[in-house]
């Protein structure tokens, strides 16, 4: 197939993953691990589809999905941030609660016809020779995923609130000493991340894999997103790159199915995880090494996690 269509397919299929992974990046930058991503995405996909097909309004569908994501995230934040319980525990429990809730509530709407997001080519740009096809012939959610990365970077590294957010994840005490309540920051960051995960869900059920069912087809994406955040070592650019890289792997997996009959294509679906572990090991070694060049080299594509990640803050 010609590269343009290939890349177009790639960016389209990676769109929800990018959104979810970036959302989680925001959350973790603020020092909170929201492990419930996989469930959130499914629940978002379900609400998005159901609301959209009941109200026949895609907009409402996406809004509902985002809101659902917020709600789940709020639970994580209340229990994991304010009640000081293990964020991993609550996130994990919610993963499964949300997944099954989605299947249960969505069952009556399973495999029904619902509205789909139409592609809207950008008037002039779409006619560009190569880039037109790759970038400007998609649905709005894909455009959103394009915008998400720069927006995230701008927010995190070029705005006051972004700085505050990173500060809260880095050292909550220091944040508090500077007159900012880290728990509030964390709460908001978690909500934001959850909302993006919810949107990602709707992106599946209304655009990428239209429709709802058991399975919907986006199962497991949440875990991938979590892995990508680490693989991209908490930098939006690297995380997004990781998401596209993952998409690439999957498409190649299909393309080469015949070339390597020995290797089932779906093996490529687990590729991000070994990579994630590898990244973590590298970062660890670079931390403990005396060799400054190696350390510097690793810093290029890997940085340590926020210092306060997963550590609840309580005022003395």
């Amino acid at each position, binding site marked *: 197939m010609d590269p343009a269509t290939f890349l177009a397919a790639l960016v389209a299929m990676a769109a929800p993953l990018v959104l979810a992974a970036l959302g989680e990046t925001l959350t973790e930058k603020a020092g909170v691990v929201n492990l419930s991503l996989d469930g959130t995405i499914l629940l978002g996909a379900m609400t998005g589809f159901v609301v959209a097909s009941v109200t026949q309004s895609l907009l409402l569908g996406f809004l509902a999905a985002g809101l659902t994501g917020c709600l789940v995230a709020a639970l994580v934040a209340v229990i994991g941030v304010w009640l000081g319980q293990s964020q991993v525990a609550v996130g994990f429990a919610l993963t499964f609660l949300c997944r099954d809730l989605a299947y249960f509530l969505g069952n009556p709407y399973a495999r029904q016809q619902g509205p789909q997001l139409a592609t809207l080519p950008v008037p002039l740009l779409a006619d560009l020779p190569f880039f037109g096809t790759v970038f400007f012939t998609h649905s709005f959610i894909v455009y959103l995923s394009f915008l998400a990365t720069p927006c995230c970077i701008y927010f995190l590294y070029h705005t006051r609130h972004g700085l505050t957010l990173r500060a809260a994840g880095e050292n909550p005490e*220091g944040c508090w000493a500077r007159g900012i309540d880290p728990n509030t920051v964390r709460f908001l960051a978690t909500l934001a991340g959850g909302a993006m995960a919810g949107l990602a869900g709707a992106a599946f059920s209304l655009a990428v894999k239209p429709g709802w069912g058991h399975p919907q087809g986006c199962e497991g994406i949440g875990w991938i997103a979590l892995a990508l955040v680490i693989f991209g070592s908490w930098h939006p650019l690297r995380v997004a790159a990781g998401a596209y890289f993952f998409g690439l792997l999957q498409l190649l997996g299909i393309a080469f199915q015949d070339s390597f009959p020995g290797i089932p294509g779906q093996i490529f679906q687990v590729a991000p995880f070994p990579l994630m572990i590898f990244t973590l090991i590298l970062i660890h070694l670079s931390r403990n090494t005396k060799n400054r060049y190696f350390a510097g080299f690793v810093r290029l594509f890997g940085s340590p996690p926020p210092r306060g990640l997963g550590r609840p803050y309580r005022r003395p």
Partner: protein
Amino acid sequence: MIELANISKNFGKVQALQGVSLSAEAGSIHGIVGENGAGKSTLMKILTGFTSRSGGEILCRGKKISLDRPSDAMRFGIGMLYQEPLDFPQLSVLENFMAGEAAFAPGQARADLARLAAAFGFVFHPDNRVETLTVGERQQLELLRLIHGGARLLILDEPTTGISERQQEQLFAALRRLKADGAAILLVSHKLEEIDSLCDTVTVLRHGRVAAAMRCPFDRQALLQAMFDSLPERLSPPQTATGKEPVVEFDRVVVTVGRAGLHEATITVRTGEVVGLAGMDGSGQAVFLKIAGGFLPPESGQIRRFGRTLPNGCGCSRDVAFLPADRLAEGLLPGMTLREHHILAARGHIFLSAATGLAGSRRAIDDFNIKGHPETTAEELSGGNQQRLLLSLIPDEVRLILMENPTRGLDVQSADWTWQQLHRRKAEDGAIIFASPDLEEIMAQATRVVVFYDGRIILDTPTAATDYHEISRAITGEAGTTGPSDEVGRSGLLPD
């Protein structure tokens, strides 16, 4: 300018502050001194709203103000340099400088940082990560940030622990300048010469209460008096024959952890010795003990225990016992009962029943009269009883006992009793090394005193050959006798 009216604070059952009052005047530097755990930091943190207070009021220019959170304090121009730097190591200098500011203007901030740094003679690369800075530089950065934030009342909590002479000069110059500009400064310090050279007034805290308040020039004697409990007249140290064979040998040991780390420590402790480590918190005693115990590998230099070079990693060998200062956090297993502690400490016992170790722990409870029963969990014990428990866990075959604040939180007679226990414990061929903020204790129990200052062994002498004043002076940094440590090592062996 700002006034604190009988502030009190308790952490759970620990009463950190009781009815403390003090005031800071514009254009003056106010010193706060006191032994470790006196409540200095807590008081300051309350003034910045970092810590909530249990009682008392804060007044600004005479009228009560509500000051419950740092943001309030910032509105009143109160800024604090915390004892343990509260900055963001992985963020850049510039970001640290900007964090928490109302406006976000990197360009502007960069310029301001450069300007201020120049004005105070500091040097910063705005884009370096803060974790690459030294403690001193991090403090300087914080200071500039506070000034930039328009702080009119500056609080500095032990700003000079672990920074170089030069940085100290720079810092003091800066402080004098700020004072001249009419800022009010609260300076927490353990180093009396700093107080002397900088402060106009000083308040002494002890056990969370104001022990004294003075104006400069200070009577050093009275100050020490107020800081530490009543000055003892020379007690005669216990007469224990100092054997010849070495128990612990340090040879040019260097580490850089802790507030001050340890610089080229060389010392030999021989059988029969009871060595008291004096010095302000974080001057190196704790690190010294951890290394001797084998819990912290030295970065350079050599350690031999009983003539054998230590293997790195877990130093757990059955002839050494270590009693850490923070009992619950480092020494005991909260949630586990006394019985379980004793089972773990003792040998044998593969399979356990409800009765296992019961007799043992009962005996220990009686011997060390711990106020608890075998099924009491460690965190339920009071501070003193936790210490008793730790003592009771020392195995019999132990030849070297290492202790941080062995009698912290013990009343007088149980302290004495504890020491009897310890001396009895110390086999003829063993030794005890302990750190204590309480000079009285050192003078009374140690056969040899080693004083640490900024990670260096500044004084090392038989107790008999020194006196209280020399030691307390050495503790605050002014030592006549900073001889080369190997010679000091020998001096430790002088028969008295």
